């Protein structure tokens, strides 16, 4: 490549990288008074439940990251706050009567109903077993939702705290619907109260009528698909026979709470009923999970609902300044890596700098663009590992070329032979890391799955950066150098015979 072409190419690439760096990392005011700000992509990118930060601009800037957490209470259990606020408004006999209804538990953190939960001053075995089963069902539901960063804790023995990352927009819906437990019933009528039950009939399990539920996506529309047995199909068909003339709604309830209300205007006679209600894929998944698990856990049909209590919007679990320090650590380690290259290879360090920037920008854009990825400890770990892979690969390529140059070859020949010697080794290492990442992404769930995907993406971009982009940049920069050996800090071996 000629000098002019190289210069144009270098300028164009520098300009593109500079613009992308600006768009990705630099906030700036867009109006007077510092009210409107351009938030760079790194600020827009979703943060995990552990990390979070405010966006720029305005008096009340948006908080990205952190989590939502909800307290769920079984029937007969209330928080001390609720107990005391109820007690505060009561006086005289009412107060005494209310006090007599509850027993303090865990040092007064919870109040347990003497009627529903306690017997003879002790929690009944029936309630304990029922709570355990509810917890199992809840865990099963959230595991099927497979959202990264979800955690479930038992609080003070008989209440549950569920935490979901704020990056998901279905957390509150899942808190509500996943708390519905008990009998799955299907009824038909004009409203839920007056609707006539279709099934299950008394003393018959729901599994006689329904096989389960899942979701389908067709032409951009999300469906909840309900699968009936022959008997279920027949009963639905019979019940909806009058729908053509008078209409009605098919209600699917769990523990008496409506999960789906399907408007029906003609007789339904399908074994697999596709329901679309402008659902997002997550909303469809939540509804199908509630119904499917209610079929799977049909033997535990007497479980009561878990009521929503306090709903918190938590800031970063790792603390306010965690994200800033993580960025600082990233910046310091990146600069340290680049400085090493500048010390060892002088101006050839620019080739590494460009390839590292390419890798960094590609990774950030992926984390921003792919909905399942957030800036969290798992993605950061995968990023660090693949950034090291990129740096070591560049160093291996440079060292190979250095050895060739030392033997007396021209720079072009040294680069070509150096790369030739290590190309397949580097390709192999990247392929294995990427393959491991893909396997983990495909098999694991939540955090580990996101780690696998980031590892695979990191290996891909590291391979492109080291095997193609770095070499190309070297080629472009080399054309502009007067003394190519000096440019790369490569020296020839001293010939003993000549001395």
């Amino acid at each position, binding site marked *: 490549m000629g000098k002019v072409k190289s210069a144009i190419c270098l300028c164009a690439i520098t300009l593109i990288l500079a613009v992308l760096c600006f768009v990705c990392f630099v906030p700036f005011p867009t109006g007077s008074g510092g009210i409107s700000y351009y938030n760079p992509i790194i600020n827009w990118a979703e943060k995990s439940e552990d990390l979070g930060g405010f966006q720029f601009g305005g008096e009340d800037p948006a908080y990205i990251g952190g989590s*939502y957490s*909800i307290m769920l209470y079984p029937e007969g259990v209330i*928080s*001390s*706050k609720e107990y*005391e606020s109820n007690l505060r408004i009561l006086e005289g006999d009412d107060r005494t009567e209310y006090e007599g209804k509850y027993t303090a538990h*865990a*040092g*007064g*953190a919870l109040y347990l109903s003497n009627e529903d939960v306690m017997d003879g001053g002790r929690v009944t075995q029936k309630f304990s077993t029922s709570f355990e089963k509810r*917890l199992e069902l809840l*865990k099963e539901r*959230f*595991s099927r939702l*497979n959202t990264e960063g979800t*955690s*479930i*804790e038992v*609080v*003070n023995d008989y209440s549950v705290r569920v935490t979901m990352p704020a990056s998901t927009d279905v957390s*509150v819906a899942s808190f*509500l619907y996943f708390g519905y437990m008990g009998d799955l019933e299907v009824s038909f009528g004009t409203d839920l109260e007056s609707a006539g039950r279709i099934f299950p009939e008394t003393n018959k399990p729901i599994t006689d009528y329904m096989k389960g539920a899942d979701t389908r996506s067709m032409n951009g529309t999300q469906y909840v698909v309900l699968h009936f047995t022959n008997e279920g199909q027949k009963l639905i068909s019979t019940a909806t026979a009058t729908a053509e003339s008078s209409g009605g709604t098919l209600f699917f309830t769990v523990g008496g709470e409506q999960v789906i209300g399907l408007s029906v205007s003609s007789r339904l006679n399908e074994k697999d009923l596709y329901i679309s209600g402008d659902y997002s894929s997550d909303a469809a998944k939540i509804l199908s999970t509630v119904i499917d698990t209610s079929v799977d856990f049909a033997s535990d049909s007497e479980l009561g609902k878990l009521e929503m209590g306090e*709903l*918190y*919007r*938590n*800031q*970063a*679990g*790792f*603390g306010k300044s*965690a994200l800033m*320090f*993580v960025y*600082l*650590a990233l910046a*310091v*380690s990146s600069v*340290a890596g680049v400085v090493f290259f500048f010390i060892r290879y002088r101006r050839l360090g620019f080739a590494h700098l460009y390839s590292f920037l390419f890798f960094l920008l590609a990774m950030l854009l992926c984390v921003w663009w792919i909905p399942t990825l957030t800036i969290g*400890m798992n993605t*950061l770990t995968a990023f*660090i590992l693949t950034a*090291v892979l990129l740096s*070591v690969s560049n*160093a*291996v390529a440079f060292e190979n070329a250095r050895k060739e140059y030392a033997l007396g070859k021209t720079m072009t020949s040294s680069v070509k032979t150096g790369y030739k010697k290590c190309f397949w*080794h580097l390709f*192999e*290492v990247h392929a294995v*890391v990427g393959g*491991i990442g893909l*396997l*983990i992404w*495909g*098999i*694991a*769930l939540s*955090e*580990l799955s996101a780690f*696998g995907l980031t590892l695979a993406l990191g290996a891909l971009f590291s391979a492109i950066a080291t095997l193609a982009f770095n070499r190309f940049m070297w080629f472009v920069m080399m054309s502009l150098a007067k003394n190519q050996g000096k440019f790369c800090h490569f020296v020839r071996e001293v010939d003993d015979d000549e001395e």
Partner: protein
Amino acid sequence: MKNKAKLTLFSILSAIVVIVGIVMVAVFGGFRVATDGNRLEVCYDTVITISGKEEALENTCESVISSRGLKFNGKNNAEILETQSLGDTGDRVIIYTFSKSVELNQLQAAATQISERVTSEYPDADIYVSVKASEATPINTAAWRGAIALAVAAVAASVYIGIRYGFASAVSGFIASVVAGLLSAAVFAIIPLPIYSYAPLLYAGIGSVFTLFFWMLLGAKLKVSFKEENGVLSAEEAVNKGCRKGRKYVLFFAIPIAAAMLLFGLLATNATRMFFLPALVPLLVSLFAAMWFAPSVMIPIKGKTDSLKFNPKYVGKKKADAEQQQ
């Protein structure tokens, strides 16, 4: 030291660490992690009573906590939202998290004192202090799917090593990766390092995967070395020679990874430190497993495969004559 003695020593040491780890897990009913613990929550109303005095309130709470000789692991600020509309209720909560070693009654006493202090300092305030004892319950499906994913990745990497670098490399790499996983978990069982509840299993997986990765790098150098020697050296000499050459390539990767983990651990907050610094344990364990344990396992296996490959064996007169003619 002869390889047989080395292998015996490594095996015994590894077995002791793993057995002690298992005993510790059995005694304490699991790993002694730092994050599962109790919370002290201070709810307050920002709209009417505490507006602009949030920092003073936090200082009051923290002075009571420290005056009682307690130390919290983490602090978080949360908004309390309407459950239906997700609207802001104007209520806020300061959440202090304590380790399991802090007794519940100590926290309850602190909560009572905080309640009394803030009631006297902010007489009109609507402040409520509570203690919540939390117990994390793992979502089992995610845990076993994660374990399967790591196991499949380890087997796939071993198969790849087998195809690329031979049977002896694959078997020794796989054994070393299993040992590295067990050792990493055992170290966290024995030493109560401040780590997250999910960390022991995650670090065990990292230990296994790192071992295979490092062993693969070493395998490439061993393959070149074996080719050069072509059966002239004994298995032990050939493996030791190849390892001497290959170890620096492993360190090329391991040192920058360790430096980055150290940097992240030292620069970041207490919470991020608890993630990155313990990650050095599986890294060190995997270096031991890949650079010393796996080669010592490989030597006897390679000895057997080499003896099959290079030693002459009886093939019958007819076949020998035919081969000679060819």
